[in-house]
């Protein structure tokens, strides 16, 4: 079964956000998950396949691209997504705010609140909710005629919404916009991964996903560089 990138990013969004049990079980069913991993493999090798609607000819040069971006323990974790109960338990301890082991996947917490001092007395401070990135995502979602889901309305730059927005743009055929959004909205993941690293073993699944996303990002950036050079 082939998975397109719109579905891929929607599924990745689910990994970090609040979903119900049946959704999670559907997303992580064997077929779906194998398809997701296959698609990730492809993106790690063929950045020009990003958003391609037709299944491109696989030009896989390497058999094990995941290992180039993930530790072997992360690869194992990626192949064994958590059960719904495990996902809930992880979220109860780490996707909640104010604890030493909080690791909320919200971009605002990793970037400057704003770089315009006229717009806030707390400009340039990091570690505050509702940063400019959140206001930007909120505006973008509204401009595209979309609605913030209630459960994440307070966090428009939650990773789930950022990934889901990539998915929506891809599904709407706006591949370039999707690519630009992904590149812009994934830079903070380097800082976020350190939070997950600090959590150790139990965060390996999420760490693996972040490392894959950073891998895709690196490939897309490299691909953009090539295009610029050849232009």
């Amino acid at each position, binding site marked *: 079964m082939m998975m397109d990138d719109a579905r891929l990013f*929607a599924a990745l*969004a689910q990994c970090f*956000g*609040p*979903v*119900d049990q049946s*959704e999670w079980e*559907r997303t992580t069913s064997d077929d779906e998950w194998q398809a997701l991993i296959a698609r990730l493999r492809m993106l790690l090798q063929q950045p020009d396949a990003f958003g391609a609607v037709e299944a491109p000819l696989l030009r896989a040069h390497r058999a094990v691209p995941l290992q180039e971006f993930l530790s072997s323990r992360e690869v194992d974790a990626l192949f064994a997504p958590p059960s719904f109960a495990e996902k809930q338990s992880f979220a*109860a*301890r780490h996707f*909640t*705010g*104010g*604890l*030493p*082991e*909080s690791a909320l996947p919200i971009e605002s*917490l990793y970037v400057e*609140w704003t770089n*315009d001092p*006229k*717009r*806030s*007395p*707390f400009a340039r*401070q990091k*570690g*505050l*909710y*509702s940063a400019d*990135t959140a*206001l*930007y995502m909120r505006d*973008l*979602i509204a*401009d*595209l*005629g*979309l*609605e*913030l*889901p*209630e*459960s*994440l309305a*307070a*966090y428009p730059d939650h990773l*789930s*919404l950022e990934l*889901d*927005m990539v998915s*929506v*743009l891809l*599904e*709407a*055929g*706006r591949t370039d916009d999707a690519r630009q*959004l992904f590149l*812009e*909205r994934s830079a903070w993941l380097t800082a976020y991964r350190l939070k997950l690293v600090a959590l150790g073993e139990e965060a390996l699944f999420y760490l693996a996903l972040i490392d894959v996303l950073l891998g895709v990002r690196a490939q897309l950036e490299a691909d953009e560089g090539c295009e610029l050079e050849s232009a």
Partner: protein
Amino acid sequence: MTETTITRRSFLAASAGVAAVAATSGFVGFSAWEAEQAHAAGEKKAVHSLCNSCSSKCGFTAYVGEDGRFTEMVGDPDHPYCDGTLCARGYGYASIAWSEDRLTDPLKKNDQGKFEAISWDQALSEIAEKTNAIIASDGPQSLIMIQDPRPSGSFYTKRFMNALGSANVYTHGVSCNMSKNSGMTQAIGAADFTADVANANMIMFLGRSYADGIRPSSLHQLRDAKANGVHIVIVDPRQNASCLYADEWVPIKPGTDLALILAMAHVLIKDGKYDADYIANYTVGFEDWAQRVQEYTPEWAAEITGIPAETIERLANEMWEAAPKACIEQGWRAAFGCAHQNSGETARALCLFNTLLGCWGIEGGAYFPASASAGKLTDPKFAAPAAPAEKIIGQAEYPVSSGGMGVSTFALSTIPEGRVKGVFFYQSNCVAGYSNPAQLSEFVQAAELSVAIDVQMTETCQACQYVLPDTSYLERLEVPEFVGGKIPVVSLRDRVLEKIHPNTKPVDEIFTELANACGVGQYFQFTIDELADAQLQTIGLSLDELREKGTITFPEKALKYGLKTTWNTADKKVHFTSDACVAAGFPASPGWLEPLVMPGEGQFRLVGGKQAIHTHTQTANIEPLMAITKMYGLERIWMNADVAASMGIEDGDEVEVSSDTHTGRTRVKVTQRIEPTSIYLPSHYGCSVPEQRTAYNVGLRQMDFVPFHIEPGYGGTMSQETLVTVKKVGA
């Protein structure tokens, strides 16, 4: 934002057709969006609210942009405490609303002692079940509530506890101004008065520093006093920041202010320098005190206080010459709010000394602010539960303590013996600040039920089983706040920001839902908006009107100066003697009472005190304020320069500070601005909660060095009754 919330498969796609996305023209990248924002003018909405960074609750107007943020906060000129100016804490503390360290979900401690998010339904039902089980087995008096009073918090916590049948509602008083208020009440039937600083001829401050424990209007008074040529004397072990405005700093050994007052009274009474008419007509028991102070000569006091006898004599005479436009300022926490074994008696003596001066109610003397309040609510939906017949736990054991504040530390100490079984905290970091933290934490952890409600993890939350996430003060409406002053006002804390975390709740909702879950919801059948409006309607105002104005003054109730001749005591007189004090084991009129501990060779008394940019431990986690601490090394202890030289300690050295209860390391500021027997440790630091990323592990915590003990009779925490040694690390 828990996993219990059910959402769609795709978070965004299902909310509008993808076709619509395909059809919209613009996709704006982040840089383009940023550029647009820089040029967007946008309307700004003015919202009135009250600061929450300290208990002054200054009124301000926030200007909120279309992006939901505010760019400006302006102090309200009519608010009696802010007088048009906010302090640095007021501005900096606003960032708490967006802080990464905010609690976002209800939490419950799991078997490994770690917190996990749970749903509100689970939290409320489990807490209610345990509460009702405790009531069934031990009665409602085995439940206690400790809260740091704020407008809605005071209303809802009391109503909730009374609805359950418990009288046990406590404030933070034991570690603040409890002894002062209680001692004053024994003398004058009032817990406080206000020195008319700007209009006086002479003012003496005992430990209190308007420029450190800031209330803007008080600082303005001090500034005006200096401009008006008022003779300002500051008596303090430390040359505090207010000394910039003073004529004289009089260093004193900590815990000996009572000796100074007694000796000054001795000087005046001996020479017949007191307002004999006032004393004859409006007081009782003067002879007893006159007799008692005969032995307290300036020479006697000089030995105890470290202040030369001539200085004591001179100050007493200067006060008399300046009278009646003179008084000893009322103090708050610093020297005798809760600091020593003799704090309550110091406050009592202070009022009696002022009585000698005949200054009560006089312009330039000591006045009692005019007040206003809401009327009684008659609509049955606001009917309050009956007040429990029992007294608050601790009242019998500390008979001259203020019942309105309560000896919370004593109540907590009864947990191990099973007298108290359940404890609630609302916006109170009791464990870190009310007495020895290790001991308090142990008490709380021994409770069958412990619940803390706060915006961020604190030492108190850490000790509890359940933590409920409060909204920040910027995200909620509260009941109207009536504030006394020369012109009393009513002011409002309104919602400045939309709720940031959807799973947090404001205090009114939390207690309403807890009450419903506990089966006493009949006392909470109204919204905060309805309650606030109903209270205002009793005085001919409305919530809309107060929202519009923020602060409304009552000029018709303005203070009128004039000699105060009736008092809120049984016989309407000032009491030089107190039967209640005798029953509590004190002399009828205040005499010398030594501090609990006196430093021996190589020992120092540890004194605390605020810095202008922090409020106790509440603001240490605020990054812009902590940045100032770090820039100036404000977390350092202070040591007298001569003493330091004799010990081979230099400015900036790392030192080890030890008491019977704790040892810790920090750096030292070597200065002549502190008398030789004291070490000053600012009261804001030493946070032990890793969740407070900014405050964690910066400096030392004063209360770690203080043993768990309680001031006899008055109930204060005796925050300065501890001795420390200091040694240079590596020496």
